[in-house]
């Protein structure tokens, strides 16, 4: 089932066309990695899905809801992890989760939250410590726990593995793998081709606001060739 | 160029390109110029008006017609407190004290028509004078310009680069201080020009003017160091800004207001009304001139008769009523002095208390120094009050003496019954011209400087303490890098 549908999307910012006829889909239980360099339109895509900007034309759907016309309902279906998961440093992991759940207007019992922390792999002893002392990987686990407890159909990830050490990256990949198993549609934007190749089911290459090539893992592809083709543009 | 000068020059270039900093600086300079111009004009105007009123009062006194001298005692005189030239820089308490007193026999009137009672509450927001601009506003503008002076470099990581290029933390901080100090010097410039004008054209005394200048320079220096230290110790520029605004609000706005409240509560003074009643009561205890059997005045009578070797007051070669007036005025004047001394002592104790609080607030210390050097402190007003009282006593006694010598006892006793006697007691108006005019003697330079000294020492103490603060900041900076 297609959970995320972007069709012929055109978005302009300050008179400049940032997304130019962008189309992509993500199914339930699928991880889609959107690769591109700076200014390719990665963040704009996420913003459009979150309903932060109105497209000029084209259509969007998040679990059957159009974020352009009903942003609130769409956000209700989305868990979003910004590049640097920034939560409240002076609150504990549990308090942060409770706070954001309240903001989203969702009520979940302490057992559910505890279970989500377990699922996200956050050590029990860290859950009641203020976030100030957390590493990036741990913060992401808190944010994942938030996504897990909300049981949302869509997870948007912005550069999730940048700044993570290899061990934490492996942990993270395992984690979103588990979410995928639960049927979550996951869209990640990144400029790390090798990282994306490790976990994504499909990879779309974004340049100047449109997908120039799309590859699927089950069909096999030559990572090195892709790297030669896009490595330079993507890293920029 | 040495690294300190290099860093300062770099800072200036940066500030020139910083629109906010330039705007603040230009605003402050404009305010300084406006304050200096209006303050000088206002001082000249006030002083001219007071001089004109004084001349008018002198003329009225000298031109009074033939009168009984005691009538002149009650006609009295007006004296006006001249405004020192440096009041154009710092008017101090001038607006809060009356500038004219009506002097008459056996009464002590208050100094009236102070500006504060003639103004709406706007005057309590502070008067725009060079002193106010430099005391209150300049530090805040310096804070806006300088709060990020070191913190900014650290936040952007450029500080490590500087250290990597061999700049010593010491040179960095002193260079920054020199850079900000240059801005402070620029802020001081309109004040310096105003002082120069006052010295050159309005007869402002040199040494007190230079003391003022030194005091304000030290004060701004204190803020420069405070800002550099806070900016280098704070984790973020914003923390430095908040802390510095907090320090400013506490020392410049809050403490100067809290200290008087405590001083008033711990050293209460009598109201005029109570003083008035107490003096009357004391007078009645000493001797009641209305009572023919009063022991004090009887003793005085006997003493006088014995001195002249006569039996009855009618036989005295002088007018006994005049002698009585002289004696009575002596008694009241003594009491006036006693009560005034007590009042001044209590007020001095109050002011001393606020001076002690000034150890915590450079703004209070500077205000003490500034008002003292300008001659516009409470002490200046006290000098005026006590000189006016001295003058009052002198002219009243001169007139009482005239009553004793120029009028016969017989005429004086019958002046209301016998029209001829009534005419004879009106003595030649030339006598009024012999009464000297009031000349206010301002404090000598030495006295002003002495009064300014505690403030100056406090400011220097702050500079020394902040010198140590700089050392601490340098060490912390070196450790962090």
């Amino acid at each position: 089932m297609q959970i995320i549908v972007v069709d012929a999307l055109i978005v302009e910012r300050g008179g400049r066309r940032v997304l130019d006829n962008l189309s992509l889909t993500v199914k339930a239980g699928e991880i889609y990695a959107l690769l591109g360099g700076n200014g390719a339109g990665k963040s704009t895509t996420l913003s459009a899905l979150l309903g932060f900007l109105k497209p000029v034309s084209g259509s969007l759907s998040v679990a059957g809801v159009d974020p352009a016309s009903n942003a609130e309902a769409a956000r209700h279906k989305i868990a979003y992890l910004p590049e640097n998961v920034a939560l409240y440093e002076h609150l504990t992991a549990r308090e942060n989760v409770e706070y954001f759940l309240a903001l989203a207007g969702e009520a979940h019992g302490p057992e559910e939250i505890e279970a989500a922390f377990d699922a996200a792999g956050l050590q029990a002893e860290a859950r009641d410590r203020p976030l100030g002392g957390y590493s990036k990987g741990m913060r992401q686990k808190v944010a994942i726990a938030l996504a897990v407890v909300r049981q949302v159909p869509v997870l948007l990830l912005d550069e999730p593995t940048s700044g993570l050490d290899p061990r934490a990256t492996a942990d993270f990949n395992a984690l979103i793998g588990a979410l995928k198993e639960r049927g979550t549609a996951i869209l990640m934007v990144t400029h790390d081709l090798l990282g994306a190749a490790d976990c994504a089911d499909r990879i779309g290459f974004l340049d100047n606001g449109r997908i120039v090539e799309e590859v699927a893992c089950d069909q096999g592809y030559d990572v090195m060739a892709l790297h030669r083709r896009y490595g330079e543009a993507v890293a920029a | 160029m040495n690294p300190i000068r290099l860093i300062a020059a770099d800072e200036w270039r940066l500030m020139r390109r910083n629109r906010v900093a330039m705007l603040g600086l230009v605003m402050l300079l404009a305010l300084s110029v406006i304050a200096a111009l209006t303050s000088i004009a206002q001082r000249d105007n006030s002083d001219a008006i007071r001089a004109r009123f004084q001349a008018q009062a002198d003329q009225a006194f000298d031109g009074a017609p033939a009168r009984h001298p005691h009538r002149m005692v009650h006609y009295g005189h007006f004296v006006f407190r001249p405004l020192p030239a440096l009041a154009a820089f710092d008017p101090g308490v001038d607006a809060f004290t009356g500038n004219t007193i009506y002097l008459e026999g056996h009464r002590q009137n208050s100094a009236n028509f102070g500006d504060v009672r003639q103004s709406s509450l706007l005057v309590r927001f502070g008067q725009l004078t060079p002193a106010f601009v430099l005391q209150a506003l300049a530090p805040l503008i310096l804070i806006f310009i300088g709060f990020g002076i070191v913190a900014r470099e650290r936040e952007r990581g450029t500080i490590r680069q500087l250290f990597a290029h061999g700049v010593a933390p010491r040179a960095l901080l002193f260079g920054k201080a020199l850079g900000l100090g240059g801005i402070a010097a620029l802020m001081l410039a309109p004040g310096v020009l105003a002082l120069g004008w006052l010295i050159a054209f309005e007869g402002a005394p040199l040494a007190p003017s230079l003391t003022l200048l030194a005091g304000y320079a030290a004060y701004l220096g204190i803020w420069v160091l405070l800002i550099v230290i806070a900016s280098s110790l704070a984790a973020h520029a914003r923390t430095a800004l908040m802390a510095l605004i907090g320090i400013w609000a506490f020392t410049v706005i809050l403490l100067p207001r809290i200290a008087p409240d405590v001083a008033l509560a711990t050293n209460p003074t009598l109201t005029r009304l109570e003083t008035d009643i107490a003096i009357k009561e004391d007078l009645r205890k000493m001797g009641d001139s209305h009572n023919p059997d009063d022991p004090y005045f009887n003793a005085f009578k006997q003493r006088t008769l014995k001195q002249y070797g006569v039996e009855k007051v009618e036989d005295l070669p002088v007018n006994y009523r005049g002698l009585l007036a002289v004696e009575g005025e002596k008694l009241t004047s003594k009491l006036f002095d006693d009560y005034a001394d007590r009042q001044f002592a209590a007020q001095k104790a109050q002011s001393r208390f606020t001076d002690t609080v000034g150890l915590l607030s450079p703004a209070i210390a500077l205000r003490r120094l500034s008002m003292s050097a300008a001659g516009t402190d409470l002490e200046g007003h006290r000098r005026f009050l006590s000189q006016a009282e001295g003058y009052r006593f002198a002219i009243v006694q001169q007139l009482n003496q005239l009553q004793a010598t120029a009028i016969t006892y017989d005429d004086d006793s019958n002046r209301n019954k016998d029209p001829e006697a009534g005419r004879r007691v009106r003595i030649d108006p030339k006598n009024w011209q012999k009464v000297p005019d009031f000349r206010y003697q301002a404090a000598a330079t030495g006295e002003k400087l002495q009064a300014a000294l505690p403030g100056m020492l406090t400011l220097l103490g702050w500079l020394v303490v902040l010198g140590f603060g700089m050392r601490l900041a340098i060490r912390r900076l070196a450790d962090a890098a």
Partner: protein
Amino acid sequence: MTGLWRHELRLFLRQRLALPALALMALLSIASVWAGMAEIERQRDTIARIQPQQAADVAAIAKWVSVEGDAGNAAYYTFHATWDEPSALAFAAIGQRDVAPYILRIRALGLEAQLYESENYNAELALPGRFDWAFVLTYLAPLFVIVLLHDLKSGEREAGRIGLLAAMARNQQALWRRRIGLRIGGLLAALLIPFLIGAALSGASPGLALIFIVVAAAYILFWAMLCLWVGSRGWSSVTNAATLAASWLVLTLILPALGNLAINSVVPVRQGVELTLEQREKVHGGWDKPKQETMQAFFKAYPEWKDTKPVEGGFHWKWYYAFQHLGDLAAAPQAKAYREGLEARDRWTGRFGFALPAVGLQTILHRTARTDLNAGLIYQDRIRSYHKQLRRFYYPYVFNEVPFREADFVKAPQWEHR
């Protein structure tokens, strides 16, 4: 939703600056209310303290005056106390009460020479202004608003949370409203609760206290709006803080000082000195003028005494009190001009108040607490009418030459305690 409010409160109170700022605001508010109440208590005590002293002074005069029973002496030597009771709200806005006298003794002689007497106060202590609640509200509270609101959005943006907050919140507007509400609500509580307790203890009327509360809330709201407006420009927290503090400097210090300068030059008042000089010349000129001339002029104002025994000889109290009063009449135009000058200054200040929130706030607070320039003028009016009563009381004794006895002293009109 109460849960959300609870979460926001926890979030807010755990912030490094929040609780200390609110506690400090409350502390300053409590201290200012306490200091103001102590000062007003002191003024009330002084008014109470002078009563027995005044009575003893009158009794001592009565003792010797009543021997001869000369009403002229009684009127000449007896001073009558007047006082200006502080209003119940004066503690919160002391205003001009520390520099304008609130007690004054007068006698039945020329009033213009007595009306402008000033009090013995330490000018160095008055110079910086009082530490009262109005000061805390006008000057310090805006700084606290700035501390609490300058980084409302920019802080979240700089911490990188703004996107997450926007993505998570069901209603973004409500989120910010809650946050602003908590901050401003907390600040207002810290500021107003001590005032309300002080007002209750002072027995202030709820209506007047409500005026204080409404203008205080409006003033805080103004600063909050300014903070939000600056915050909406998308600048950094540092820029917001510097901009807002600079606005505070301009709005509460620089513009009022410039306004004062402007008012003083547009409306100069020096009639005060002129009128006292004029009054003295008229009064003392009276001694040298033919007595009949003086009496005729006086009878124009008080025809009821025209037919009393004519003045003869060198001196008579009738004539003396007549020229005292004529001195006041002669100075009346200057006195009127002086007063109008003061009122004009006050009016101009009111006009500035429409443009400058701090000035408007102070105007309303001090007008409501009756501690402004106008309150001083009203006190002077009351003294004028009391002085008239006093003269009317003494005139029958003086003009009908009725002996003034000890019992007559207590018949003198008493100052009405408001």
